[in-house]
């Protein structure tokens, strides 16, 4: 309702208490190396997709972990699964499986049904 010429802004703050982290839990359970990520950004730096469009696996990792899932699925689809990220990851995170699992989790989850 635009009664006063403005809307009440939605904050940018991540509300960790109320966010839904089921996607992250789904991945943690199936790919424990997800926990090992130290957010160095190596994956994003080498990323084939990331060189052509705004796509950062590192950022998606964090967003999933914090339960900021809203736009993650849209982004995840851009991944080509080429696997360069696995080769550069210093912590041996199985990045491709995380992408696949995340997509699976989103598709299985009713909350994010397309």
């Amino acid at each position, binding site marked *: 309702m635009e009664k006063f010429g403005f809307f009440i802004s939605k904050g940018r*703050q991540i*509300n*960790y208490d109320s966010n839904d982290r089921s996607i992250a839990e789904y991945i943690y359970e199936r790919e424990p190396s997800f*926990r090992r990520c*130290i957010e160095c950004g190596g994956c994003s730096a080498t990323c084939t997709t990331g060189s052509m469009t705004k796509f950062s696996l*590192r950022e998606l990792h*964090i967003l999933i972990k914090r339960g*900021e899932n809203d736009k993650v699925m849209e982004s995840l689809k851009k991944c080509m699964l080429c696997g360069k990220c696995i080769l550069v990851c210093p912590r041996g995170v199985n990045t491709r499986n995380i992408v696949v699992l995340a997509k699976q989790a989103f598709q299985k989850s009713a909350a994010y049904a397309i």
Partner: protein
Amino acid sequence: MSKHVVVIGGGVAGLEAAGRLSREGLDVSLLEKDSITGGHLNRWFKLFPDRRDSSEVKDYLEGLTHANNVKLFTNVTIEKLNRDKDHFSVLTNDGKELIADAVVVATGFDLFKSSRKEEYGYGIYDNVITSADLEDMFRKGEITAADGTVPKKIGIVHCVGSRDEKAGNLYCSKLCCVTAVKQAIEIREHYPESTLFCFYMDMRMGGAYYEEMYREAQEVWSVNFIRGKVSEASETIDKKVVIKVEDTLAGRPLKMTLDLLILMAGMEMSEGGIKLAGLAGLKTGDNRFFEATDHHFGSNKSNVEGLFYAGTCTSPMNITETISHARAAVSEVVDYLKNS
């Protein structure tokens, strides 16, 4: 007639230095302000990175001094410390005067007083505690929130009083990160159903096996690491702690309610050290720690001839480094006495 060395401070560095000096055949007096020796070891329960019991290290150190007949004076503070010609005169609060050929200062560090970071509400909010308080809980074998319940969601704030201009400390205390990781693992071991969050500015896991512990904390113990300095804490109506932090890697501010917030207090120059610096005219640096004459090859040497530093009175150190530094001080003393 063997020469007499006074060692000031009965913590890790003091005990090691005293024991070793005595073993070198010198007459050693060890002055300790508390009633017992061991310093901070008395408060810490398990040590990183191998999680051994702190009492093992204490036993080793005290064993060393006992075996070598170190003269121990407890409950002693220093009122005067003068150098006359080639002797030191040390006047204690109980009126004793000790004449020494050399002095080793091992006054150690004080933990940063977390209440100085007012925004975290230590001493005000019921469920904000420090790393040292947590060690007390570990010793008791029970980690509880203020109301006696088991905390489920626990946050750990790194760099409390370190790397913080507002706290007056520009330096990194360097052991808080690994302490945080150690304590996070210990809590998870104790309460497997708890969730741990470490809020860090940088993970500085520089020591041997520290990084491996960090990895273990993530992988095995599911500790969550969030990069960002907690800006403020506040209390909810049911006495939980709400923290605000920027998740710098998500580029978004983050708010979270926790059952318990643990502050990783940094290391500061001890009050006793500052007092001693005034009494004996010892040089201190911008970081208020004693300033050694050379960073590279004179880290035990003070600006007063015959007075040497050992351990964390010069900068934050872990136990390994403290012991090494104390041994280095011993060799400096022996060298000095041989040539004087």
